[in-house]
């Protein structure tokens, strides 16, 4: 029985077209760069080229250093369109995973799979950079970052404009966050008319942090009014040369309340830009400023002569990522080395640039043997700790074996075969066949036949239930069983007695007496032994039999007893038939008596 259900399930699933679905997977990270302790949201979208199947949840890979937690299933989409190959129906669903890291570094998330039917698809890899948790700033106390209210610099509407900055001294290459900020009464509304920062920060690389506008209420009231600080944006300056960085007043024009035009200028200020110290500066320092981590490795540690390996070096951290000088990549005369490629992924935050740079170089060994490519080393200046830091990778060792040539053979053998692909779909043809001419009624319940089909089992059920209850009672209740069976048993004995009437009068009389006493005993559940002519009248009266019938029974029993012990050969037949007739009549009368 279980196998039948399994078969039904298989048929249903197959009918849903599970086996023929085409599946696609795409993965996208909301933030490619996070810090330790932060969470990156990964959205995996599974698309199935069938509207009969729900896009399955993907299978996440195991990546040391990262943990994936399923957060929620996202939006479900279903659409149909005419593609280049014909008509396509598809359903897609996104699944959101939260990624947390146990160690900082640069990760390639690959191997996200989804399976529908017999098709499996893998998402293209996505990269995630995990930075160290933010360091405690060990810099001099902040000056410009505080909101310094100066009523003399306010316009007639009580509005002041300034550039906020965090500290007075920075190192060359260190990001300097600058926040152009309005301070104005809470009830005011301001629309900026003109504001231009071009060429205002000479000697610096300037970057504007997107979506960095902030508005916060000041803790202390000004002139008895509640004030807000409205930071228009955050810009990051990267000083390119040491010295004094003079920031001139920056003009800004704006409308107050949408009608009144006004103008303000920020206060000028000077920042000191220091060069990196010469004391303790390593010879191989190439100008990297910030905080970084280094990862280096090869994709193949053992390979054949002529086979290519990729050496990758990744620098992860915060600093001048986009202008980071490359590390010195290891080389060996036994390896043919190709031009390195550089891949930069960076985000501009309110504190500067964070991200990673990956350098990859393709290397092909030309001779067999054990090779030690050495360590990858990189030096940077940490402006927070004000010291140089050297990073070193683990030694890179490569084993090169002789070329076997099998690889090429495999490629040659597998060539020429490919999967059958659907080239296109179009409008489907009409349905023909014997059924097309049949009239089909959907609302069967409106016809009498269907109602009968439903009612008949109900009637059957009620009948069976009554029968079942009766059978149970017959089995359990002896008195009931005797009462029910008494008439049939009496009829049977009577029939036997009749067949003896002409042969053996005494025996027939005994049988008639047994018929009568057994019936009474079964019908009213009394011991047959107690039914004697002397007691029967009283016993029957007690169970509700009329005195006349009871009297007739007593008389009959006496006559039957007499016929058994004092039978006369002359009138045997006649008397016996009379007795039989009387017994039959009395039984008939007794059967009519209600219990």
């Amino acid at each position, binding site marked *: 029985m279980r196998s039948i259900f399994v078969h039904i399930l298989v048929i249903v699933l197959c*009918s849903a077209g599970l086996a023929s679905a085409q599946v696609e997977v795409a993965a996208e990270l909301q933030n490619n760069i996070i810090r330790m302790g932060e969470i990156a949201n990964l959205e995996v979208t599974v698309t199935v080229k069938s509207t009969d199947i729900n896009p399955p949840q993907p299978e996440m890979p195991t990546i040391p250093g990262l943990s994936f937690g399923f957060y929620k299933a996202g939006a479900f989409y279903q659409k149909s369109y005419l593609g280049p190959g014909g008509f396509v129906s598809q359903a897609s669903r996104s699944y959101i995973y939260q990624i947390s890291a146990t160690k900082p570094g640069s990760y390639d998330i690959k191997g996200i799979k989804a399976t529908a039917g017999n098709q499996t698809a893998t998402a293209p890899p996505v990269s995630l950079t995990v930075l160290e948790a933010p360091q405690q700033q060990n810099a001099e106390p902040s000056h410009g970052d505080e909101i310094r209210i100066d009523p003399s610099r306010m316009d007639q509407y009580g509005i002041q404009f300034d550039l906020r900055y965090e500290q007075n001294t920075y190192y060359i290459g260190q990001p300097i966050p600058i926040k152009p900020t309005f301070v104005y009464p809470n009830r005011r509304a301001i629309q900026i008319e003109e504001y231009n920062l071009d060429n205002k920060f000479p000697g610096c690389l300037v970057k504007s942090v997107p979506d960095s506008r902030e508005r916060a209420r000041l803790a202390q009231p000004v002139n008895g009014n509640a004030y807000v600080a409205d930071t228009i944006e955050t810009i990051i300056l990267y000083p390119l040369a040491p010295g004094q960085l003079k920031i001139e007043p920056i003009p800004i024009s704006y409308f107050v309340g949408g009608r009144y035009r006004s103008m303000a200028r920020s206060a000028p200020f000077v920042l000191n830009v220091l060069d990196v110290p010469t004391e303790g500066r390593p010879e191989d320092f190439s100008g990297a400023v910030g905080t970084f981590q280094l990862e280096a490795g090869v994709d193949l540690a053992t390979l054949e002569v002529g086979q290519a390996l990729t050496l990758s070096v990744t620098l992860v951290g915060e600093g001048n990522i986009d202008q980071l000088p490359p590390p010195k990549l290891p080389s060996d005369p036994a390896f043919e080395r190709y031009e390195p490629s550089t891949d930069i992924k960076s985000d501009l935050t309110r504190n500067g640039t964070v991200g990673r740079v990956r350098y990859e170089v393709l290397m092909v060994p030309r001779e067999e043997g054990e090779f030690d490519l050495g360590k990858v080393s990189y030096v940077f200046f940490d402006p927070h700790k004000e010291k140089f830091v050297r990073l070193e990778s683990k030694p890179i060792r490569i084993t090169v074996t002789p070329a076997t040539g099998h690889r090429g053979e495999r490629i040659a053998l597998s060539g020429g075969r490919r999967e059958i692909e659907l080239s296109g779909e179009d409008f489907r043809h009409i349905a023909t066949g014997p059924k097309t001419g049949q009239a089909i009624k959907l609302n069967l319940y409106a016809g009498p036949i269907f109602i009968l089909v439903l009612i008949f089992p109900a009637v059957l059920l009620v009948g069976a239930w009554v029968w079942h209850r009766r059978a149970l009672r017959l089995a359990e209740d002896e008195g009931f069983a005797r009462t029910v069976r008494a008439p049939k048993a009496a009829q049977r004995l009577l029939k036997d007695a009749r067949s003896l009437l002409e042969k053996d009068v005494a025996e027939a009389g005994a049988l008639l007496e047994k018929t009568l006493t057994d019936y009474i005993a079964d019908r009213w559940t009394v011991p047959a032994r107690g039914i004697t002519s002397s007691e029967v009248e009283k016993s029957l009266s007690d169970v509700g039999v009329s005195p006349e019938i009871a009297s007739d029974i007593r008389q009959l029993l006496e006559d039957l007893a007499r016929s058994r012990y004092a039978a006369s050969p002359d009138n045997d037949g006649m008397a016996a038939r009379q007795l039989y007739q009387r017994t039959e009549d009395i039984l008939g009368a007794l059967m009519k008596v209600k219990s």
Partner: protein
Amino acid sequence: MTRQRLGIGITAFFLLWVGGTLPLGAQQTVTVPPSVEEAHGYYEDGRLNEAAQAYQSILDSGVTNGWLHYDLGNALFRQGKLGEAILEYERALRYLPRFGDLRHNLEYARNLTVDEVLRPAKSEGVVGFVYDLHSKLNLRESLWTVALLWWIFVILLILGWFTGWSDRLTWLRRAVMALLLIGMVSTTIKIIQFETVQEGVIIAPEIEAKTGPGADYSPTAVLHEGTKVRIGEFRSGWVRIRLPNNITGWISRDNLGLI
């Protein structure tokens, strides 16, 4: 003799009348619809208008089934009557919810409509499986399934009463009872939908839905052929309709085909 001849004459006249007028009358009042094969033949020959008329005649004669609606929908679609084709496909879908070609052509046609209408999201897990089963059977099949399950359930009960409840029989009875309950709920929903929910398809190329039942009312939305709507009420040649995104309006009855 004369009376006898008169009788023979009257009888002959009656027979002639019966023989002559009845077939004549039948020819005048009863229109024999073309056969399905004939309609298919028109379609195969590319005589699409004649094919559509033939299918429609068969349907009008009382022979109603999903295949005829589907074939009629195909004939209409290939004539460029998108709204009417979708209407026929929707009608066919009530009979043939599992017919792949029908779903394909309906999607194909829907894809060509101007109005994009929201569709409910698919459920998952057990609910999705049950909903799938629910939507894969038409009302007739659901009714027969429930009847069959009811018969099996009754037979199992009777068997159990008279032969005793073995573990296997008990398990089977529970499974059948669960299926029966699901089937009854599903069928009840279908009956309620069949009896109370009225839907239609816009068959005019483009119409304006009005705020009230009349051309003078201001417009609320512009609808295009093939858009499926739910029908609220009829009033003097106008129909109040509702779209899945809860846009309501009144349109002329002539622009709407009832599913």
